C-alpha cells in the first residue's frame, strides 16, 4: 500500500535523473563545499588512481620485473605474483568487460611458467614467459608509435 501510494503520488518518488546526476542532488540537498559534496569526487579520484595502478603501466612494469626476477632466481612465487598482477591489465587490454582478444590469456602463460618452474622445468618456464614479454614490448612500441 505504501509503495503504491508513493508511486501514485509522483512527487514522493525521485526520478532517475535526480538519482543519477550528482550535480542536481548536491545542488538541492547539500551545499557545494560540504564534506558530503566533496566525498564523491575524492572517491572517484581514488578509484581512478587504483585503476591506473592496477590496469596501467605500473602494474605492467612490476609484473615484468617480478617475472624476470622469478625466472632468473628460479623462484616460482614471484611468477605467481606477476601472473596475479597481469590479470587486470590483460583483461583491460582485451576489451573490458567483454573479452575480444587472446591477450586475455597472457596471465595463463605466466601461471604456466610458474607451474613449470615449480616442477623444475626451467627452459619451459622461459619459453612460456617469452610471449608475455613480446606482448609487453609490442605494447610499448605501439605506444611509442603514437595514435597515427
Amino acid at each position: 500500500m505504501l509503495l503504491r501510494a508513493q508511486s501514485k503520488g509522483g512527487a514522493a518518488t525521485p526520478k532517475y535523473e535526480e538519482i543519477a546526476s550528482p550535480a542536481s542532488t548536491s545542488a538541492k540537498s547539500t551545499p557545494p563545499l560540504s564534506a558530503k559534496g566533496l566525498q564523491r569526487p575524492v572517491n572517484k579520484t581514488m578509484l581512478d588512481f587504483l585503476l591506473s595502478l592496477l590496469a596501467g603501466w605500473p602494474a605492467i612494469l612490476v609484473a615484468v620485473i617480478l617475472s624476470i626476477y622469478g625466472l632468473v632466481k628460479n623462484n616460482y612465487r614471484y611468477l605467481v605474483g606477476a601472473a596475479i598482477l597481469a590479470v587486470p591489465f590483460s583483461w583491460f587490454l582485451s576489451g573490458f568487460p567483454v573479452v575480444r582478444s587472446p591477450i586475455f590469456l597472457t596471465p595463463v602463460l605466466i601461471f604456466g611458467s610458474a607451474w613449470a618452474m615449480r616442477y623444475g622445468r626451467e627452459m619451459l618456464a622461459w619459453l612460456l614467459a617469452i610471449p608475455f614479454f613480446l606482448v609487453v614490448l609490442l605494447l610499448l612500441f605501439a605506444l611509442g608509435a603514437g595514435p597515427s
Partner: protein
Amino acid sequence: MLADILIMMIFGFPAAILSLLLSVIGVLTQKFWLVLIAAVIFIPFSYYLSGSPSLAGLPILLPAFQVGAAVALREKNKLWAWLLLVPAFFAVLWVGSRVLLYT
C-alpha cells in the same frame, strides 16, 4: 588483425629486442640454451633484414653468431660469448637508428 599483431611481434623490433635481452640474461646467468632460444627469436628479424638490397642478404647470418655465443658459453668462454653477441647488437642499433632518423 591478429595476424598483423603477430607479424609485428615476430618480425619487428619487439622480437629483436627481446632476443638481445634474453642473450644478455643467458650470458650473465651462464645458460647457453637461453642464448639458443634468443637466436631462434632473432631469425625472423634477420630474415626480414636480409631482404634489403643494400645488405646483400648478409643479415641472415646474424643468428649464427648467437649460436656461436651459445657454444662459447657452453665451453665456459664468456669473453667469446660477449664478442659473438656484438654483431646482433650492432645490427639492431643500426636499424633502430636508421628508423629513428628517417621517420
